[in-house]
């Protein structure tokens, strides 16, 4: 066992720790949520990571997007993710896809993964991702943020909850009025990564058919069943 992974134990057994090296996880979105998710997956030692994003870094990303700094404004988020992750952990293989998720590419990009992270920022893309994950039979960890608020749930193959959480029919949510601070994507991303590790190792209880609602303004954390 490489020293770099020792502190994954014994919350993970030696076998579980080693098994992460064989796992494949796709992260769709390399912005607020995606940056933190990718960083953590690489440090944990997930062997094969796909980082997908069609966007470039913008100055307004600097307040919260981990992968964004003053020298990469204007550069591809996915390609910057690749470069950063290769420095964090050269032992994991990273595939960067610098385009948006579309109906034409979704199944090809996502196939073969053991888990997928939703780090997107709009409802239509999230619905496409969810449908694609379902048709491929791949677990999907959904996360969403807005200001002081966040949500996380895990959709296993066969689960369906699009209608339940997207009832208003909007493309975007209250994040358009509230913005997002540095801490909200970090918090929600961390919970998403914990869910991924549990999917990959079979440990613990997933947020399956239930949603964790986070409110850091009032420090309220509640899980609701669906």
């Amino acid at each position, binding site marked *: 066992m490489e020293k770099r992974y020792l502190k994954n134990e014994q919350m993970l057994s030696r076998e579980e720790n080693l098994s992460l090296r064989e796992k494949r996880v796709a992260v769709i*979105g390399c*912005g*607020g*949520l*995606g940056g933190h998710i990718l960083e953590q997956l690489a440090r944990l030692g997930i062997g094969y990571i796909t980082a997908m994003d069609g966007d470039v870094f913008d100055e307004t990303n600097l307040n919260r997007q981990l992968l964004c700094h003053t020298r990469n404004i204007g550069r591809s988020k996915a390609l910057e993710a690749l470069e950063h992750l290769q420095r964090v952990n050269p032992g994991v293989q990273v595939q960067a896809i610098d385009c948006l998720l579309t109906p034409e590419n979704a199944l090809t990009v996502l196939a073969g993964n053991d888990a997928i992270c*939703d*780090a*997107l*920022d*709009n*409802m239509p893309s*999230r619905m496409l991702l969810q449908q694609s994950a379902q048709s491929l039979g791949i677990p999907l960890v959904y*996360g*969403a*943020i*807005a*200001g*002081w*608020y*966040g*949500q996380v749930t895990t959709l296993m193959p066969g689960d369906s909850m699009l209608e*339940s*959480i*997207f*009832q*208003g*029919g*909007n*493309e*975007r*949510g*209250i*994040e358009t*009025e*509230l913005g*997002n601070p540095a801490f909200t*994507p970090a918090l929600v991303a961390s919970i998403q990564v914990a869910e991924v590790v549990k999917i990959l190792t079979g440990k613990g209880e997933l947020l399956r058919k239930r*949603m964790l*609602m986070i*409110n850091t303004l*009032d420090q309220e954390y509640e899980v*609701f*069943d*669906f």
Partner: protein
Amino acid sequence: MQIKVRLFATLREGRGKERMEEVADNTTPAHIFQLLDISPKDVAILLVNGMDGKPDQILKEGDTVSIFPPVGGG
């Protein structure tokens, strides 16, 4: 009948986090939205007694309606 309404995130503005509402029998969550001046498009998640609810379902005495706005950033 008495219905408990729990509001989340920005829906609390001007409304509070929890309210008891006296409503007529056969009231639905859609009626509650109107009562509280909440547009249906501002509701992403509706729960009745903590479980997935429908705007047109008939509520009973003592039910709890939880209303969440859309949260979609990433």
